[in-house]
């Protein structure tokens, strides 16, 4: 659709899937992966008795013509592991050949040799995971298995952010009649599987150039990585961005790794090669669920004012995660949610473990899950109204003097919370269910009538776009449009999703009377060399991909074109975010307004627990969002409802929770439009687990839950002292 045949183009955008591309002489590729999470690899080869058919090849680290690693934000990642194994599943080599079935058979015949002087797992563990392991015997005799050294499992802190304001320790240690300290431990390990095309790459040599087709998000990184690994000059690398499955921080850089591996195979065989990960590899390596544990200690005054907050965030970053610091920073920024206590200590740290780097679908959702559950717990234990608690503690405007380091413009937050409470009849139901929860232990447990257990909870949060706190990019979001003729427009950006495209098309038609069929996209990212010459850094095309920022910039571009009295074609207009907005964030002090704009959302979830089947039934979800001016209500509503369905598919393991009654409303506003794609992920899980906690009369502190968790929790709640009411 967007392919151009201009001579000097190096980047194209295509509507097709890379896995649908094929040529007559194409070879398939499979990756050979380490079955062990650690150890030192000394040799990789084929079983001596195995016959490798003609036309089949195996390439490993020794076959790499250029650098043996790719660089992502300073972090080196081996193309093929050659030495210390980082995690189970780390790539050791690539097998290519014309028949996929034969490749899978050959994969089983790959032999690994580990350094036998190192402490290793018990032999039966090895043989369970891999049949053809060759363990080099010690002194000619097979040595006895040695128990695994515990020290090897200790994780290493690779990124940390500590923020302190005021004297939180003093406040938290003080015990007075007027205040209480409440502690909560929260864990969110929900896994979201888009269930789309798995990651992979198609490469071929043509006309002296190497052509790469991949669902790439970070084009310049892929180009640089392939150039450094293969030794092919950057201008000879032609990249076609194919249809992708959506945002995935892992895919940002892992596609470059896959491309580097495939290109090595293409260069060595001279034939086109298609590498497509299996569904299992996709789930275990690319989409491994995040492990984030958050501990909150909150000192609350009897009036409901939060006096101090101590937040500890432990993030398992896996092995060699280049975005560990970015993720830690982002978690720290959102860790207190919409609340701004005077005294706060936030410690966020990422630990390196022998696991693949995790896939975080919505980066703020884990911390919002923790803080909103904590607020709900405070409300339950102190008897304060959840609405009042939020009203008293919501974050202040940047103009207010406060020690709290972050400012978020959450607009009509109070009105949104009141609206959602009114819509869902929250105040009345909360009081009734709370009474029912408290009095449950007075009921006769053998009563013939067992009323359904019900709960309702409220959660709120924000979604920030145009994040300024990233370590990786000195971002300067900008957008350029070109009008080659009066009725045509070219937007120099990657094409957005269909719903956003509809909004943009409507804006363009309204402002300039240009029809949708005359709108096209054209994107050519700058090369690393050009960027370095201009003093810019990498990842710009991803980080400036915040769609709401682009929408604002597009609106400004269209207004400029409309204002011009004399239009000379072709006309080019470029708009940037003003420097004054960027200067609101101080990266050295890690303080200020970290987002260019923020939308706010409040959500209530009401559910009922069937006392016979111990399964939850959602009675209703109400969501109210303040996202500035809504350019097109129906697509926005559909986006939110779709996000609700996707989110509900993650809260119970291996089960999709449905809700028949989902109400979505937007606050009326003339402010600039804000992003709403991820806000549901930040507010719905906390509201769900808090409502479940009320229904069960015991705290649900971890998601996802299992189908039998509810039975275990409810039985435990009946027979033990209710921990939610001290």
């Amino acid at each position, binding site marked *: 659709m967007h392919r151009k045949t201009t001579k000097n183009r190096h980047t194209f955008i295509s509507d097709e*899937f890379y*896995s*649908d591309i*094929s040529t007559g002489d194409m070879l398939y590729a499979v990756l050979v992966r380490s079955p062990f999470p650690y150890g030192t690899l000394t040799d990789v080869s084929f079983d001596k008795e195995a016959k490798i058919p003609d036309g089949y090849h195996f390439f490993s680290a020794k076959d790499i013509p250029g650098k043996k690693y790719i660089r992502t934000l300073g972090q080196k990642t081996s193309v093929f592991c050659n030495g210390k194994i980082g995690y189970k599943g780390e790539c050791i080599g690539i097998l290519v050949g014309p028949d*996929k079935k034969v490749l899978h058979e050959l994969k089983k015949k790959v032999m690994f040799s580990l350094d036998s002087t190192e402490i290793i797992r018990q032999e039966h563990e090895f043989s369970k995971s891999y049949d053809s392991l060759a363990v080099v015997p010690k002194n000619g005799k097979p040595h006895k298995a040695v128990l695994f050294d515990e020290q090897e499992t200790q994780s290493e802190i690779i990124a940390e952010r500590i923020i302190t304001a005021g004297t939180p320790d003093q406040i938290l240690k003080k015990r007075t009649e007027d205040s209480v300290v409440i502690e909560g431990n929260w864990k969110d390990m929900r896994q979201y599987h*888009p*269930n*789309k*095309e*798995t990651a992979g790459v198609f490469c071929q040599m043509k006309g002296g150039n190497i052509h790469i087709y991949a669902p790439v998000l970070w084009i310049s990184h892929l180009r640089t990585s392939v150039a450094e690994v293969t030794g092919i000059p950057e201008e000879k690398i032609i990249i076609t961005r194919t*249809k992708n499955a959506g945002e995935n921080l892992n895919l940002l850089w892992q596609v470059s790794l896959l491309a580097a591996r495939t290109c090595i195979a293409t260069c060595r065989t001279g034939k086109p090669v298609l590498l*497509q990960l*299996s*569904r299992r590899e996709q789930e275990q390596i690319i989409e491994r669920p995040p492990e984030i544990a958050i501990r909150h200690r909150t000192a609350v005054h009897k009036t409901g004012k939060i006096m101090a907050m101590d937040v500890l965030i432990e993030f398992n970053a896996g092995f060699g995660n280049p975005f560990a610091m970015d993720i830690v920073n982002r978690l720290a920024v959102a860790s207190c949610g919409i609340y701004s206590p005077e005294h706060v200590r936030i410690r966020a740290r990422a630990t390196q473990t022998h696991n693949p780097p995790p896939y975080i679908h919505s980066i703020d959702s884990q911390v919002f899950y923790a803080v909103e559950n904590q607020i709900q717990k405070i409300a339950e234990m102190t008897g304060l109204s959840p609405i009042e608690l939020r009203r008293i503690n919501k974050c202040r405007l940047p103009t207010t003097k406060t020690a709290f380091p972050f400012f978020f413009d959450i607009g009509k937050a109070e009105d949104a919370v009141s609206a959602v409470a009114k819509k869902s009849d929250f105040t009345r139901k909360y009081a009734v269910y709370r009474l029912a929860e408290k009095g449950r232990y007075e009921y006769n447990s053998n009563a013939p009538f067992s009323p359904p257990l019900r709960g309702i909870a409220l959660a709120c949060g924000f979604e920030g776009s145009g994040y300024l706190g990233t370590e990786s990019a000195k971002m300067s979001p900008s957008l350029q449009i070109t009008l080659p003729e009066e009725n045509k427009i070219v937007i120099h950006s990657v094409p957005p999703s*269909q*719903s956003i495209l509809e909004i943009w098309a409507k804006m363009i038609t309204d402002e300039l009377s240009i029809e949708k069929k005359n709108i096209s996209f054209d994107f050519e990212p700058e090369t690393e060399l050009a960027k370095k010459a201009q003093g810019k850094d990498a990842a710009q095309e991803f980080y400036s991909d915040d769609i709401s920022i682009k929408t604002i910039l597009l609106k400004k571009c269209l207004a400029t074109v409309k204002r011009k009295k004399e239009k000379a074609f072709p006309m080019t207009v470029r708009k940037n975010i003003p420097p004054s907005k960027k200067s609101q964030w101080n990266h050295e002090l890690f303080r200020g307004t970290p987002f260019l704009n923020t939308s706010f959302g409040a959500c209530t979830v009401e559910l009922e627990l069937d006392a016979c089947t111990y399964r939850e039934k959602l009675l209703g979800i109400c969501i109210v969002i303040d996202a500035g001016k809504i350019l097109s209500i*129906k697509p926005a509503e*559909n986006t939110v*409802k*779709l996000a609700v*369905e*996707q989110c509900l*598919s993650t809260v119970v393991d291996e089960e*999709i929770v*449905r809700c028949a009654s989902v109400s979505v409303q937007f606050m009326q506003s003339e402010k600039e439009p804000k992003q709403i794609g991820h806000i549901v992920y930040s507010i719905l899980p906390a509201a769900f687990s808090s409502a479940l906690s009320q229904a069960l009369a015991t705290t649900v502190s971890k998601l996802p839950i299992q189908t039998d968790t509810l039975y275990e929790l409810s039985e435990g709640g009946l027979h033990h002292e209710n921990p939610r009411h001290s």
Partner: protein
Amino acid sequence: MKIPVILNNEKTIIDAAPDERLLDVLRRYKILSVKEGCGKGTCGFCTVLLDKRPVPSCIIPAGLVRDASIETLESFSKTKPGIDILKGFDQAGMTLCGYCNAQRVFSTYALLERTYRPSAEELDVLADSIPCTCTDRKTFINGVLYATANKHEREGRKNGLV
């Protein structure tokens, strides 16, 4: 092995090993509407019509389709029932991701063949059977209802009567 089939209404002889997956055979013949999904026959991304019934082609060995009629989305989308369904999806404002197209279209076709007017329960069961989350349930169900209306209009039938 040479296997005679009727592929998209044309008599064809496909060359495949008897245990080769029908999905792989079709993709080898450049029929790309069938996509690799779970590989276990549960996700439905590889659905085709085998003797007019939707089946997951990833668990059908090629040896079993001798003399069978295989219809894929490429051909089905040009037929009248296919046009009814795709038009219905369009009327509901659905934008398919490209990966689940075959499953959504063929599941809808099977439902409309089975029943003149699908009930709310049947629609719920249909929506539940689609694991892809590119489209929300309500929009998909609306799409099926539009498809139903299109089919009735084309057939000129009212209340099941000619």
